[in-house]
């Protein structure tokens, strides 16, 4: 019981132990159970204890197992000290050795040479055993973990299966109930059906009965009627006889004079001849009526036949042109159309000859019409199929290509339009230039003619020139642009002219607000034409000159204010450029 005591201490200890201690405790407890089960009965009580330990902290149990890797704390030491103290070292060692040997571990003691009372503790063995125990512990914990997880899994599976089972049970229940309901309804409907059948039968029987009654009553009634009628007739006869026998002179016609017959003829005796005549007349009337009706019917027939033939012809004409078109799916029926046409042509001629309601002719006509109609129908059906196929398959290749083509074409057309626009612009500009050239030529002529008169003014103009150098940008521009004139005589000729023109234009010195006026002045005098001369000369030298030319030409164009504006603004820039560029 020595073993028990220390365990009692352990068992009775409060649960305030740390996790590690508890784990060990429980682990120890485990061992106890394992060993105890297999071993002596004296340890059964121990097993009880240990099992208690196992059961009670069940929730902590799993957690604690998982935390088995938590390192042992100081409390363990106290725990160890509780088991093995200074006093019972030998006892504890021997006990441990016993336990370990039973477990199959090597002995803790050293090999004893003899039967000595005290055996030395084999430290190596102890360490090995400790290691083994640790390994074992780890393995067990791992196994426990696995078992735990498996247990959880199985638990969840179980839950799931149980829920499935319950659901299926419910479903089964509901379907059973439904089935019962349907069966019930079916039964009811069958009942109703039977009832209705019964009612119907009853009604039919009743109807039959009533009919029989009516029939019997009718015969009875007829009998009675006949009887009564006979009586009545007898009475009538009697009465008639009486009346006739009465020799009543009163039955007479008192007429003033005979009235002539309506048609003026005399009355005639009734003879056999008249009878025969009457018969003849009657038959004549009948025959007339029949003939008349037959005529009507013949007319109708002829009309209908005409209509049918027309229909046939139209149908043939409808079907035959189809063959000329290159169709992908030419079938034999269209071939038969042609042959039919030929046949029918012959038939038609024959028919027209026999315009009677002859049996064979009639049959031929109807048959041929039927044939044509069938062909037409199949043709229409094919067309329908084709149409539906087209719809189903979506766009053909042809369509796609055509669309692309279409787009390409539109692009091409757009490009063309742009090109055309540009061409028009350039042509317009060229036209203007041409106009200016013409004007320039005319001015040159004029200037040439006026040259001699303006010589003295040149100096003045130069002075003015300098004076006005700062007046307006425009003038500056003009001036600056004109400055580097190193061209030959034409230019020089033009320059005094320019000067003159400039003087003319100077009074109307432009400010930004009066720009329109200057423009108009300029356009009037077309001085810019002159000015254009100079940059034009520069044109081959300067790249920017061209632009300025253009712009100035634009500016001088009468009636285009925007053009002037733009032209002038551009001239600013260009001239600035020019300024820089010009040498």
């Amino acid at each position: 019981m020595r073993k028990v005591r220390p365990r009692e201490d352990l068992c009775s200890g409060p649960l305030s132990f740390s996790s590690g201690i508890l784990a060990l405790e429980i682990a120890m407890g485990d061992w106890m159970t394992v060993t105890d089960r297999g071993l002596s009965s004296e340890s059964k009580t121990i097993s009880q204890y240990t099992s208690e330990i196992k059961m009670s902290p069940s929730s902590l149990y799993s957690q604690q197992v998982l935390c088995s890797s938590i390192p042992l704390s100081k409390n363990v030491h106290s725990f160890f000290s509780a088991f093995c103290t200074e006093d019972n070292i030998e006892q504890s060692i021997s006990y441990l050795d016993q336990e370990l040997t039973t477990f199959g571990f090597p002995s803790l003691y050293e090999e004893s040479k003899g039967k000595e009372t005290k055996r030395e503790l084999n430290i190596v063995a102890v360490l090995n055993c400790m290691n083994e125990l640790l390994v074992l512990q780890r393995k067990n914990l791992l196994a426990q973990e696995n078992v735990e997880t498996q247990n959880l899994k199985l638990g969840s599976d179980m839950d799931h299966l149980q829920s499935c089972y319950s659901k299926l049970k419910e479903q089964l229940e509901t379907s059973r109930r439904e089935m019962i309901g349907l069966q019930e309804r079916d039964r009811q409907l069958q009942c109703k059906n039977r009832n209705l059948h019964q009612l119907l039968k009853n009604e039919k029987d009743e109807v039959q009965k009533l009919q029989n009654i009516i029939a019997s009553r009718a015969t009875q009634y007829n009998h009675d009627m006949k009887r009564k009628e006979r009586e009545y007739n007898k009475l009538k006869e009697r009465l008639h006889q009486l009346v006739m026998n009465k020799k009543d002179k009163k039955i007479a016609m008192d007429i003033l004079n005979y009235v002539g017959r309506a048609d003026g003829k005399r009355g005639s005796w009734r003879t056999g001849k008249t009878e025969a005549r009457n018969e003849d007349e009657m038959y004549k009337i009948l025959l007339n009526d029949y003939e008349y009706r037959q005529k009507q019917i013949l007319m109708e027939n002829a009309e209908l036949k005409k209509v049918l033939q027309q229909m046939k012809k139209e149908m043939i004409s409808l079907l035959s042109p189809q063959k000329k078109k290159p169709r992908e799916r030419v079938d034999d029926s269209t071939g038969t159309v042609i042959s039919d046409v030929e046949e029918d042509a012959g038939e038609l001629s024959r028919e027209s000859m026999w315009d009677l309601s002859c049996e064979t002719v009639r049959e031929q006509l109807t048959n041929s019409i039927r044939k044509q109609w069938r062909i037409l129908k199949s043709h229409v059906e094919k067309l329908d199929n084709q149409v539906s196929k087209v719809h189903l398959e979506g766009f053909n290749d042809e369509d796609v290509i055509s669309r692309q083509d279409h787009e390409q074409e539109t692009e091409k057309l757009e490009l063309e339009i742009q090109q055309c626009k540009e061409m028009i612009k350039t042509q317009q500009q060229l036209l203007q230039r041409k106009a200016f050239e013409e004007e320039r030529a005319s001015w040159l002529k004029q200037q040439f003619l006026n040259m001699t008169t303006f010589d003295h003014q040149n100096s003045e103009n130069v002075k003015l020139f300098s004076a006005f150098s700062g007046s307006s940008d425009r003038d500056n521009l003009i001036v600056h642009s004109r400055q580097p004139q190193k061209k030959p005589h034409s230019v020089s000729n033009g320059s005094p002219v320019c000067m003159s023109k400039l003087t003319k234009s100077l009074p109307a010195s432009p400010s930004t607000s009066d720009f329109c006026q200057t423009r108009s002045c300029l356009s009037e005098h077309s001085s810019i034409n002159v000015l254009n001369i100079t940059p034009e000369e520069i044109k081959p030298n300067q790249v920017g000159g061209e632009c300025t030319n253009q712009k100035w030409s634009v500016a001088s164009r009468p009636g285009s204010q925007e053009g002037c504006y733009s032209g002038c603004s551009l001239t600013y820039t260009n001239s600035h450029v020019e300024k820089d560029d010009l040498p």
Partner: protein
Amino acid sequence: ASCVQYRLVVRDVNTLQILQLYTCLDQIQHIEWSADSLFILCAMYKRGLVQVWSLEQPEWHCKIDEGSAGLVASCWSPDGRHILNTTEFHLRITVWSLCTKSVSYIKYPKACPQGITFTRDGRYMALAERRDCKDYVSIFVCSDWQLLRHFDTDTQDLTGIEWAPNGCVLAVWDTCLEYKILLYSLDGRLLSAYSAYEWSLGIKSVAWSPSSQFLAVGSYDGKVRILNHVTWKMITEFGHPATINNPKIVVYKEAEKSLQLGLGCLSFPPPGAGAGPLLSSESKYEIASVPVSLQTLKPVTDRANPKIGIGMLAFSPDSYFLATRNDNIPNAVWVWDIQKLRLFAVLEQLSPVRTFQWDPQQPRLAICTGGSRLYLWSPAGCMSVQVPGEGDFAVLSLCWHLSGDSMALLSKDHVCLCFLETEAAVSTACRQLGGHT
């Protein structure tokens, strides 16, 4: 011509001027013009007398006395020279000749609503006879009263015979207890027999189309069956349901136009949307929108002559339309388009329709309901005309003039002539008279 008590008054149609005045020996029950309009016969059934007057010679007179034989019916022969008198109890028919003063007797005539019928051209007369409880038909030549044909008919109890307008076919139909109509040709051969159903009440009314192409048979089941003259088989049947659903059919409902503002209860609520053509003082037609349900009358099943079935049938003179009246919907007149074989229009009156008659010249229908209004229908529309006069003129029957320009409206003791002009205006002339024309 009209008669008052025992006087016969002959008036001019256009002016209503009295042309002649004759006095008979007794109260006149029946007057009839001869076919050539030269003579008028006046029959006095009580006395068994027939007096004939001439219009050309007012002093000419003729008196036929049947004596004890009695007189039940009297009519002219088509040539206007013979008078057929049916003696009492239908013992015999006496044919009196005005030309020869001779008498012929025809035995065993049948006592049925329509036992004598003349062909349109007046050549032949068909007479229904019954001997030994069997029906026979005799065809006589009217010119000399020779018996042409005599044949028996396969009928239980012949109710009526009628020649087709072309005079070649004779329609013979059976009692209403059995639906059977037989068609005989002029020479007595049976052309065809038609029976739509059995065990129910059968034929109620029969009408030939003026072109002889169609034979309309109205029966107690509320349907009209049209037979064609080629095969004598039914080509269609027209039902007369109480509810009309087809929007293509024009339904004219007569509605009162309330004139009194005080007693507002008298006005009938207009049934449908839109107003129809109208020209009247007190009532107008309104076009009712479908579905329209007509007023029906539940027939008393245990009485004789139940008010069900097609009681009235009439073809328009061009055979394009057929007017019918279903007796359980007594307020409505149904007009059928024969060209298309479908219902064309329905006119619902406020009171039961008494009679209708087509204009002899054009498809115009005149209807009277016993009220003081005359109703006219044509494919263009319909209108209701108030008959002028003091007090209420209850139009009980009407009769068109052959020219289609005028018609006579008869009330109990008045006659009113209605002149129709080509425009919408209608003028009426009223005279107080007695008896009937």
